[in-house]
């Protein structure tokens, strides 16, 4: 299987704090790959590096064989990486469908004047239909015209996923998508994530604390602690790895 995301010796520190420490990691195309680790272990920092919000101090990230680290976020988005945020960053005053439309415009590269002239044309009609389809995909079709800030927490998380899918990514990075969801919502989310990979063919990297969800969903798990990778493998191996248990529970003096 081909590697879609290749992280090589990545490091990033903030002042004296080392957030990512010589991290190397490969994500295979077509997998659901989970990244777990205690709070502050550098998971979100890794996402921020992969999407261009931060530039690494050293090391590099290759997406489909092409170096992306150091590029600005909108260029990386155009190359095919979508993401959601741990602390929900929706466009709150805009309706659900408009949020997805903003994502969808990533698919076209019109100049400003062209884009304005196409208002109300077949192209924007097509985008509206596409946005509606993505909302249906995450089962939010009924909330299409609601301002996104009025949606429930779980719905907002699903809307973020639909918006990220709008950019037509080949790789999607989900940052704690189950946080704040009730058990029913989590079950629906698990199904939705699986459908993203199976039906849309998008590779998924997921940061998640809900271990049941990770064990159910992921084919491969990387464990971070203090910005380093301490373990990696299929979930059933990770579950019993003493290093992982140590990272989460601390080491006992014997």
């Amino acid at each position, binding site marked *: 299987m081909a590697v879609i995301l290749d992280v090589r010796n990545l490091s990033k520190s903030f002042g004296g704090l080392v957030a990512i420490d010589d991290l190397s990691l490969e994500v295979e195309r077509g997998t659901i790959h989970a990244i777990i680790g205690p709070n502050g272990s550098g998971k979100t920092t890794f996402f921020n590096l992969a*999407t*261009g*919000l931060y530039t690494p101090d050293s090391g590099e990230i290759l997406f489909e064989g092409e170096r992306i680290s150091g590029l*600005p*976020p*909108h260029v*990386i*988005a*155009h190359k095919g990486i*979508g*993401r959601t*945020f741990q602390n929900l*960053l*929706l*466009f*709150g*005053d*805009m309706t659900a469908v*408009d*949020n997805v*439309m*903003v*994502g969808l*415009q*990533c698919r076209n590269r*019109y100049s*400003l004047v062209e*884009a*304005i002239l*196409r*208002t*109300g044309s077949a192209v*924007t009609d097509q*985008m509206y239909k596409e946005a509606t389809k993505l909302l249906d995909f995450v089962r939010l079709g009924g909330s299409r015209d609601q301002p996104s800030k009025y949606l429930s927490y779980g719905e907002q998380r699903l809307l973020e996923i639909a*918006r*990220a899918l*709008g*950019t037509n990514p080949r790789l999607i990075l989900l940052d704690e998508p189950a946080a704040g969801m009730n058990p029913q919502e989590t079950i629906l989310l698990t199904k939705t994530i699986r459908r993203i990979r199976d039906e849309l063919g998008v590779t998924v990297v997921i940061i998640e604390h809900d271990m049941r969800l990770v064990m159910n969903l992921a084919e491969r798990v990387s464990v971070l602690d203090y910005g380093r990778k301490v373990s990696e493998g299929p979930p059933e191996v990770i579950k019993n790895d003493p290093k992982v248990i140590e990272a989460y529970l601390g080491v006992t003096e014997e």
Partner: protein
Amino acid sequence: MQFSVSDLVQIILSGVAMGSIYALMALGFTIIYNALRLINFAQGDMFMLGATFGLTLFVMWRLPFSVAFLLAGLGVAVVGMIIERTVFRPLRRYPVLNLIIATIGISITLRALALIIWGSQALLFPPVFGDKPITVGKLVLMPHYLWIIGIAVVVIALLQAFFTLTLPGKAMRATAQNRDAAALMGINVFRMDSLASAISAGLGGFGGVLIAPVFFVTTEMGALAGLKGFAAAVLGGFGTIPGAIVGGLVLGVSESLAASVVSAYRDAVAFVILIAVLLWRPGGIMGRKTR
């Protein structure tokens, strides 16, 4: 003092006309604030540039007023874009206060340049909207006020359509609400800054060229216009588009009513109203009730 109905209509009409100009100025402040989080002290000078550009195009180059109007507004928009590229963008990595101070520098520079080009004399802009009052029944109306209101309504409607209907408009709103998320949706946020700066300057420019046929054109005319536009934006609720429009109209009408009673205090009255409203509602008329 007794007012006839006709007097009152005229006072309100002139208030609404001035209010539309303030609304254009206030929208200029709002749009650049939403994009770059800065108060642009050079906004008043965009107004001045609109008037002086209009004067050059219409009086010296003898272009039709409609063409001069459009070119003046677009010309000021280009100035706004150049300012964003050369000043705001390089300063973006510093605290926003540096940008705000830079806008004061831009303002001084533009006024000095304008003084060199157009001189210190007040220049007369011919009354293109006609100077003969129109009589409708008992009402006597000045045509330029109707033109100003009409054109301002069209400009604001186009702006509203841009923000709600077009994709670049949605992208700009998205960027204003969350810059990082917008960038990750593939939006070139720097291009949005440039566009916001251009639109904001262009609105000031349209305001200036609209008012030019009513007042004299001077290189210092931007100072008070900028202050009134800022006051209107704060009065309506800073950072919101409906707030800028309402704030502009409320300021224009109340100023006009006040001036008809005590004309010497016209400008003072505007700011007294501003302070009174802000004591009552710190967030402005359309703003949030609590801070």
